[in-house]
């Protein structure tokens, strides 16, 4: 299994960078931006598992990608008018 680590890492990292770029580059709506950044976190938490850091992975998944993304959407729903300003 360990020989699968490297390709998985490469794949994960590449996706993370793409998602990261989407989250800052995308001219499209804010929900997509926020989802992409949540995706970065989620992918990162998988990567943490590969890096033998299960504690961090759990935290990142629960807090980094879960709670933070939710907070974003929550605030976005409140300031809808400014989202595309």
């Amino acid at each position, binding site marked *: 299994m360990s020989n699968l680590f490297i390709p998985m890492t490469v794949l994960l990292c590449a996706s993370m960078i793409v998602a990261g770029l989407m989250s800052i580059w995308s001219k499209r709506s804010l929900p997509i931006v926020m989802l992409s950044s949540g995706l970065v976190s989620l992918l990162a938490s998988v990567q943490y598992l590969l890096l033998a850091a*299960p*504690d961090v*992975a*759990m*935290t990142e998944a*629960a*807090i980094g990608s*879960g*709670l933070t993304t*939710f*907070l974003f959407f*929550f*605030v976005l*729903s*409140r*300031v*809808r*008018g400014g989202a595309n300003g």
Partner: protein
Amino acid sequence: MVKSFSVLVLLLGIGAMFAALLLGYVPDSELNQTARYYADKTASETGAANIVAAIVVTYRGLDTLGEVTVLFLSAAIVGLVLASGHQQGKMRHAQPPSGELLVIGVRLLVPLILLLGVYVFINGHLTPGGGFQGGAILASAMLLLLLGDPLRTFSHKLIAIVESISGLVFVGMGILGIFYAGGFLDNRVLPLGTLGEVFSAGAIPIIYSFVGLKVGAEFSSMLANLSGTEEL
């Protein structure tokens, strides 16, 4: 465009710095002195199987206390920010009721999720997970409740009491360490027990549980405050 370009130039500089760090990075082949100490001594000194948890709760317990305080501050300030200049008495827009499915799902799921959260932080010293993860899970139960019923209001008082008491217990356990063990936040105020059991590792499970409760309460408090706002 000019801005993007100048930012790009700057980031090239930062990138150079990072590149130097990356190229100069040599992975350790052996654990360094600190890590080795933890690997060797964690089991005997703290009785925790999860070394990360032992570090977080005991060896670097002061950091964790600070971290909990960060959340405490954030929650308090979110409350302050949202409360400042807040006009009371405005009626909120009536929103379409949530779907039946969601409501029932929430009712079923919330106790399960709460249970999961508690499990995660009680076992923090044995398995991956702990107060922060568990706390976040607790808060997500809260989130679900909120999704099920957007107009729901939470008892700020309950949240406040949970966060205060768990904070006080954390600090109190720390002080006990000064008197009955080797120093502030020393977990050996309670017997260390057998490695691998739930009731082991001295004060770690207790502290981690209260950290969990506190984190959950802080996040809930933030959510509650945010949900109290109006759409602009």
